[in-house]
């Protein structure tokens, strides 16, 4: 009877065998890291969306391109993703324009390449850690299950040496083992939800950036052709 008296969570966790404790530790760390990245990405994506909105409004609002370019290149750390793409493309365009004899195609190809490179870099930065969330989401249930199976194995093993098997002898072991599964699910569910949500957000953001790049090249081409 004394077993059922002390079934508090802390007691169960402290009583667990070393492999189960190890699994619980891994899962706790994974859960903590995934929540950390979830919040980091939340802030980063929100800020990126805000910056993009602001820059698009400024750009299409008829601002002077040279002024925007100077502002962005003076303090690149304050600029958003789309602004950096714009800056990379515009600086390449100016450099190529300065060289005499470059054809329209050469200028436009160079500009587009520069913008694409900047775009890739930005998307890569935004995408960082998302793979970790995916990994946690898919793997941590299995890790938790492993801990549970191990714990139940031990619980039944200890039952083998007892003449009369009662439920009270296995119950604490199983309860303790099931905590591992619970922790695995606890780590996995938010990670999966966040991963799906962030990939979707990122897709929308990158498609916005791509369409901006196309439109901006059109504007530049018109200027060269003049």
């Amino acid at each position, binding site marked *: 009877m004394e077993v059922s*008296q*002390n*079934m*508090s*969570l*802390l007691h169960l966790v402290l009583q667990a065998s070393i492999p189960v404790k190890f699994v619980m530790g891994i899962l*706790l760390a994974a*859960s*903590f890291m995934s*929540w*950390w*990245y*979830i*919040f*980091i990405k*939340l*802030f*980063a994506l929100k800020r990126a969306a805000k910056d993009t909105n602001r820059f698009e409004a400024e750009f299409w609002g008829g601002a002077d391109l040279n002024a925007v370019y100077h502002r962005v290149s003076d303090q*690149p*750390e*304050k600029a958003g993703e789309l602004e950096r793409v714009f800056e990379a493309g515009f600086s390449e365009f100016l450099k190529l324009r300065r060289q005499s004899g470059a054809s329209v195609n050469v200028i436009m190809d160079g500009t587009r390449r520069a913008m694409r490179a900047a775009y890739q870099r930005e998307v890569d930065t935004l995408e960082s850690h998302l793979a970790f969330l995916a990994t946690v989401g898919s793997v941590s249930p299995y890790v938790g299950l492993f801990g549970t199976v191990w714990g139940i194995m031990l619980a039944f093993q200890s039952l083998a040496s007892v003449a009369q098997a009662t439920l009270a002898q296995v119950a604490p072991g199983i309860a303790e083992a099931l905590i591992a599964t619970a922790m695995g699910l*606890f780590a996995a569910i938010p990670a999966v939800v966040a991963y799906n949500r962030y990939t979707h957000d990122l897709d929308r953001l990158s498609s916005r950036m791509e369409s901006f790049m196309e439109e901006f090249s059109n504007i530049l081409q018109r200027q060269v052709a003049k």
Partner: protein
Amino acid sequence: MSFALQRNDLAAAVLAAGVHGFFLMLLVIGVSWQIHDPQPIMAELWQAIPAQVKPLPPPEPPPPEPEPLPKAVPKPEMKAEPKAIPKAQPESKTADIALEKKKQEEKKKQEELAKQKQALELEKKKRQEIEKRRREEDRLMELEAEQEAARIEADKLKREQEKKLAEQKRREALKRDEEEMERRMMEETLALEASQSKAREAKAAADRRAAEIGKIVDRYKAMISDKVRGNARLPENLSGNPEVVYEVNVLPTGEITKIKLVKSSGNAAYDTAIEKAIEKSSPLPMPTDREAAAHFRELELKHKPKN
């Protein structure tokens, strides 16, 4: 940019820790709720009874206290009467003596009167004081007596209640003992009945089994004699319906190990014919039931040419 990112990282870490702390708290509270069913329930029932009975007696004694005052009031009126007696004496002495004498006498009388009055007053005061003291003493005594009475009564009540409680306890204990006895007796009778019915059942089962085995044995005996009859080649010179009896030893498989003539029919050819028929019948049909098969270890085969 790097500074902003770092601040964001820190905020994210704090938020992540907050989320974990929140969930852990929920879990701990949620799980510890279910642990609050400890065992001491039986003891409380008994402790509750005396606590309820004891507080009852105190309210009864206080009412008699205000009584002593009205009793003490009438006493001073009775003691005031003696004052009137000494005043009447000086009035009877009036004679015609000289004025001076008279005056002197009057003076004297007045002085005496004054003295007497003073003495009377003194006496009165003394008496009143004594009276007062006595009254107070009386009152105190009465109070004490009443308190004593109240105390005695409370004691009595208490003792009675204790007695009642003890009685109740004793009765309950007795009742419990009786119930225990009754229960035990019931259990015993039940056990006895159970054992008896079990024995009866066992006997019935044994009877049934014996009947079953008898039936099986009969059936197999019939089968054996049919087989022997089928294998028998009766001699032609047989007349009548002679009976021959053989004792046969049989293995559990039905194989015949030994055939012994117990009672001859008188016709030697018939005897040998039946012996051969029995030999030919080996293995004999044996029942699969082991108890029934035990009846066939040593078999007495009676054979008649016609049934």
